[in-house]
């Protein structure tokens, strides 16, 4: 939880809210900016109790590269899953995998879990209460170790570098 130390507990969130508001109304008129700013101040004040400490982005450029890679993976993942689903002769080998987490912050774990859910044949199913491991359900796996290694290299390492260094 963030301490309500000021009227602007989460500056980055406020800026994001203002931006999203302006995009939603598709205008940068003065009135909209005022209204958006009011919302950007009011919403964090009303919800800061639910937020963890605001994450600090160590390397914004890396974050951008990570986002692009995830986007690319999502497209590929979709083709793979579509193929798996629509091929009736293929025997699927579903798999539950307990993935040991390296990340420690809850925000980054959330990001990783979401990424896993969006990419190749995997859905994150359960995070252990102690935050040490993540249960993943995979649609079709032949090598469990390889999948863990791949997630670690492609997603977890970059996330750790971006947020937790």
């Amino acid at each position: 939880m963030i301490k309500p130390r000021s009227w602007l507990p989460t500056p980055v969130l406020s800026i994001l809210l203002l931006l999203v508001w302006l995009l939603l109304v598709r205008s940068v008129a003065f009135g909209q900016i005022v209204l958006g700013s009011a919302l950007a101040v009011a919403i964090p004040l009303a919800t800061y109790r639910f937020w963890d400490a605001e994450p600090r982005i160590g390397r914004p450029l890396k974050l951008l590269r990570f986002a692009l890679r995830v986007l690319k993976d999502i497209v590929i993942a979709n083709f793979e899953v579509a193929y798996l689903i629509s091929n009736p002769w293929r025997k699927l080998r579903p798999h539950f995998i307990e993935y040991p987490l390296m990340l420690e912050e809850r925000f980054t774990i959330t990001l990783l879990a979401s990424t896993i859910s969006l990419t190749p044949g995997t859905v994150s199913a359960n995070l252990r209460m102690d935050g040490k491991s993540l249960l993943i359900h995979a649609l079709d796996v032949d090598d469990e170790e390889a999948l863990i290694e791949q997630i670690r290299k492609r997603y977890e390492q970059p996330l750790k570098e971006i947020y937790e260094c």
Partner: protein
Amino acid sequence: MAWIVEALASLLLIAGGVFLFIGSLGMAHLKDFYMRLHGPTKATTLGIGFMLVASMLYFWGYEGSPDIQEILITLFLFITAPVSAHLLAKTGLHLQLRRIDVTEGKPVELRPEEVGERPVPHPDKGHG
């Protein structure tokens, strides 16, 4: 020029439709709950994505100004889809839904504190 934009947009719409259909097909014919979950989280995301790109392209071609609201829709979709999938999977585990026999991996059991039968210390270190 206009017909190129139109053709591209229609192609994208068809691609989107195909992906949505396959996603729904997966929901209908895969064997167990956890596998069915894969359809809507992925195939559907890309299906909607294609349709939004088509819409963006079409209105860009016709009104001349690029529209970014579709990107916002995609963004919200990417934020919400994994969360709902995660919650559904977790519920499935909680209810101990049956999975098909070929499922490999350690048997999944929720520990008592994860189903609320034992209180847990707050996991948050530092900022409590």
